[in-house]
């Protein structure tokens, strides 16, 4: 690979899926069924869908944890099938729900995982840890030597974010990172990840089953159902022009939620 962060070709789409199909053994339907999508560099794309709709499969294909049965996936114009999966993954930030942190390592050691593998020198690693912890609003002095078990769920997720961001990857994959976090912390984390993305202008792909989260964070939203992409558009367009009944139903749940919140506030 030559040039740019991931070896940029002529095509400036950060991520491109072309006729991608995937079926798992013992599953009646396809996890991904002829998926075509192009994601521009710098976009914050949220992928929304109920469980089993293929959204996690989508993300795990980008860092080659899963292999497509058919079709091509390109990052910055290069077919990932031709790249070394380990080297590819080191250039992609990966955050997952809950368990991502290594319990036998401190916060600092967790964040230093990839820098150590990349053989950064000591000062660069130390600076990276410090900078990342500040970025995710954790006081380095207080948190760097703690173990994951000594952190709250929200703090763990912040460390997970810091660990994924430290090598400054051009693409970030986030698989329901805030799925198990209480509403208030979730709100804070959402605001922060939005801020971090806005500062970096890297490409973020964020899986969620929460429609409010998807519409709030995404510059674009992919709505998936049963292995198909139903709609891929900006949040505004999805609200104004839902393309089929599935999306309309999803938006209805949003209204119910909003009404409920208003009723709950006793207005």
């Amino acid at each position, binding site marked *: 690979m030559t040039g740019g962060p991931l070896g940029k070709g002529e095509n400036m789409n950060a991520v491109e899926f072309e006729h991608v199909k995937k079926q798992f053994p013992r599953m009646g339907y396809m996890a991904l069924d002829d998926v075509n999508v192009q994601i521009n560099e710098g976009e914050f794309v949220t992928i929304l869908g109920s469980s089993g709709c293929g959204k996690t499969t989508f993300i*795990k294909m980008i*860092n080659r*944890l899963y292999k497509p049965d058919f079709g091509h996936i390109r990052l910055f114009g290069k077919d990932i099938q031709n790249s070394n999966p*380990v*080297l*590819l*993954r*080191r*250039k*992609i930030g*990966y955050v*997952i729900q809950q*368990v*991502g942190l*290594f*319990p*036998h*390592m401190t916060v600092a*050691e967790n964040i230093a*995982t*990839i820098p150590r*593998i990349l053989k950064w020198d000591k000062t660069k690693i130390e600076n990276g840890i410090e900078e990342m912890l500040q970025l995710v609003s954790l006081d380095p002095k207080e948190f760097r030597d703690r173990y994951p078990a000594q952190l709250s769920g929200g703090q763990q997720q912040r460390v997970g974010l810091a*660990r*994924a961001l430290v090598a400054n990857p051009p693409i970030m*994959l986030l698989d329901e990172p805030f799925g198990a976090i209480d509403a208030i912390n979730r709100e804070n984390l959402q605001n922060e990840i939005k801020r971090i993305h806005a500062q970096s202008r890297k490409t973020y792909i964020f899986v969620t089953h929460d429609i409010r989260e998807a519409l709030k964070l995404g510059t674009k939203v992919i709505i998936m159902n049963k292995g198909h992409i139903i709609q891929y558009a900006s949040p505004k367009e999805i609200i104004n022009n839902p393309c089929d009944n599935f999306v309309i139903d999803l938006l209805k749940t949003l209204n119910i939620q909003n009404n409920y919140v208003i009723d709950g506030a006793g207005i």
Partner: protein
Amino acid sequence: MINYFIKNFDMFGTATLEHLWIVAVTLAISVLLSTVLSYALLRVKYLEDAAIQLFSAIYSIPSLALFALMIPVMGLGNMTAVVVLTLYNQFLLLRNILSGMNSVDKNLLEAATGMGMTNFQVVTRVQLPLAFPTIIAGIRLAIISTTGIATIAACINAGGLGTVLFSGMRTMNVYKIVWGTILCAVIVLIEDLLLKMVERKLRRGAC
């Protein structure tokens, strides 16, 4: 009691050293063999249960019988003892190594892979350190079991503290029996201490 020990220090000393030799050699070979076996079994998963079953069957053979069975094959002596004890240890070690390695959260391993670790790095930096306490517990069990069963090996001329115990039994010499037992316990304690030191060193190295 103490006089008897001092008077027969040579006998006790030789027996203890012989015993330590058997235990040390057995453990070194056992750990090596079980490492190789579990490396293979973690790759060929469907053989895992069969292997554990096989070694648990071997483990259930009374040691006296297994020593006797090995005489026609390997003759008398301490090497026969080492082979039998190594066979016994495989059950304790394999079971603990495999369950330790398998109990590490699969999602965590996938996260490690997804971050860009090679398979080797996933095993050495994540899976092994997390399985470490279970593996050490297995080795501790193996030490205790080996030290105990090695006394029976005296009946196939393997030497060691078993010789003292058996001769104590034949001649109704309580001193020999009591001192033989105490020395066995001391050996276990010393080995345990050594193991703890190794454990601490490895822990520090892992981070």
